């Protein structure tokens, strides 16, 4: 039994008056890929933003490594090892690939560790090494996604929150991205994956949670959810 690294307990988050997350609870164990699936507006991105403290939950607890972290600040959580790779990649288009990566290591002070992490990212994404001096904005969509994930890896994370990494990518690129996610798990990374591409995500995931209008309506192992009639009908077509 591996230990729980991240746990949400009855988390409620509001956008103004809109109740976006309703009593969301789930847990992520070390070394697992956990996926959140659901349609548009189900609250997947909101969940990730709540975890990384970009949004403050109204009540409920976000527990990370046994510590209650709701109400903390995003920059403190980055130091603690939560890397959030935001939806739509959000790379810095006018900085070079390498500068983008260095931004990811903002919370690190040791130059040695930055260099080590950078070498690791370049090893993982040889394409980025080829394009290290190119401006972020000139990369293809898939390369930008690689850059965003690489940038997330730069801060020595214990858990990565990946928000729609396959969004808007060519099918071949989607496969590459999923391969990389799998590889990261094999190297011990814990990943919380938000995906619209439910079939691929569930095949990969140890555990999945289905969100609908802000609530968790279903949970189970990846394989269980893949077999579930409701999931098949609603998300797998």
């Amino acid at each position, binding site marked *: 039994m591996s230990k729980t690294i991240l746990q949400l307990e009855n988390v409620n988050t509001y956008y103004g008056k809109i109740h976006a997350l309703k009593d969301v609870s789930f847990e992520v164990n070390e070394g697992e890929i956990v996926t959140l699936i659901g349609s548009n507006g189900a609250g997947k991105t909101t969940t990730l933003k709540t975890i990384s403290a970009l949004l403050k939950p109204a009540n409920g607890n976000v527990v990370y490594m046994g510590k209650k972290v709701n109400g903390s600040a995003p920059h403190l959580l980055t130091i603690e090892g939560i890397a959030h790779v935001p939806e739509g990649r959000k790379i810095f288009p006018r900085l070079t690939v390498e500068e983008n990566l260095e*931004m990811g290591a*903002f919370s690190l002070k040791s130059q040695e560790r930055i260099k080590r992490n950078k070498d690791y990212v370049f090893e993982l994404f040889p394409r980025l090494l080829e394009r290290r001096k190119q401006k972020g904005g000139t990369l293809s969509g898939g390369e930008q996604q690689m850059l965003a994930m690489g940038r997330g890896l730069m801060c020595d994370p214990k858990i990565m929150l990946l928000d729609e990494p396959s969004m808007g990518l060519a099918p071949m690129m989607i496969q590459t991205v999923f391969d990389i996610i799998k590889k990261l798990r094999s190297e011990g990374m814990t990943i919380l994956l938000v995906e619209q591409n439910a079939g691929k995500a569930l095949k990969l995931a140890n555990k999945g949670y289905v969100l609908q209008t802000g609530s968790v309506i279903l949970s189970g192992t990846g394989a269980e959810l893949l077999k579930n009639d409701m999931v098949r009908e609603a998300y797998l077509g």
Partner: protein
Amino acid sequence: MDTIKNYFRLIKEKQLIQLVLIFLAPILFYLFSKSSIIFLLFLASLFLLYRIRLDMKIKGIVALLDLLLIIPLAGLENSYYLGIITQIVIYAVLAIGLNVVIGFAGLLDLGYVGFYAVGAYLYAFFATSQANNVIPESIYQFPLSGNWFWLFLPLALIVSAGMGVLLGLPVLRLKGDYLAIVTLGFAEIIRIILNNADKPINLTNGPKGLTPVKPPEIFGIVMNQPIHFYFIVLVLFVIVFISAYRLDHSRIGRAWAAIREDELAARTMGIPLVRMKLLAFATGAGFAGMMGVVFAARQTFVDPSSFGFMESIGILAMVIMGGMGNIRGVIVGAAAVVILQLHLLKELSTFLTQLSVSGILYIPSQLDPAKYEKLVFGLILILMCVFRPKGLMPAKRTMELIKGFRKKLTKESLS
């Protein structure tokens, strides 16, 4: 000797002209310190000196000679041009400060001049007898002596930076246009308070302003000559330039760049957003406050009308014209705007007036050149926006510090 010969062989004709200008213009300026064309030529040579490819040592020596010898010597002959150069340096410092806020952190601040006013009034209040309206004469008889000027430089920096943080705390939740409007309002609030704080207790003497402000003093020498102020602002300029440069190339500078590019991404990178924005605001405000002290001491007179909205816009124009985010560009912008405003347009006005006086060209009094200075200035700005929207010297996106780091890395990872 061979290297020198080789060097000269490599120089093309165009560069030769530039070289001649760089060495000749200062000498001409020293000899004919009253000629307007030679003055402009001299300033152009300073700019060229920066652009030209030349041994750094030679460049440095020529620059030092120009700044420390030629300008003061020519200035003793003709204090008018020395005044313009001093003005350029003052505005260069202000523009560097505003550039930290706008160019580095990407926060549109239209109330910059408010902090300039804070610094100016802080010194003027204690360096005139005004302070006796609050502190009884029996305790201390104001004005303070000019020796205090030196203490007020850092003091104004701290007070203005503090004001920057106070204003920033509530305001920095806003972005873009909204931030611009609130900061604009802030500067107006400061100006109007200065205008009206003459009752019930007379703090600022209202629209009449405070005078005479004590000039700075050091080792018993009263520094009230243009040449003194030239050296004071030059020293402050060097300090501000180096600090801004170091900030830009530090971790903080990187954080600012990230915030400017994409706030959400910057936050997910672990950059403390509010703290970094406040720091940018405070830095800019501090530089402005410090220059305010110099302004008060130099003019020996401060009044609220010196800190109007147009002043903020003027400094903003320097930053935009020079190239947002580029410290050197902003300095060029400051020089260009000051020369336009104080020198070229005035010269044009007097030239046209002379024409109409001598009857060559009739200009009706409605079209008196002195009246359309601002129009010409506006036209130039519009042309700038059309043809050089990123400024005279756009900022390079690459960061030198990282470049150096990268060079090291490339070597290691390739070997």
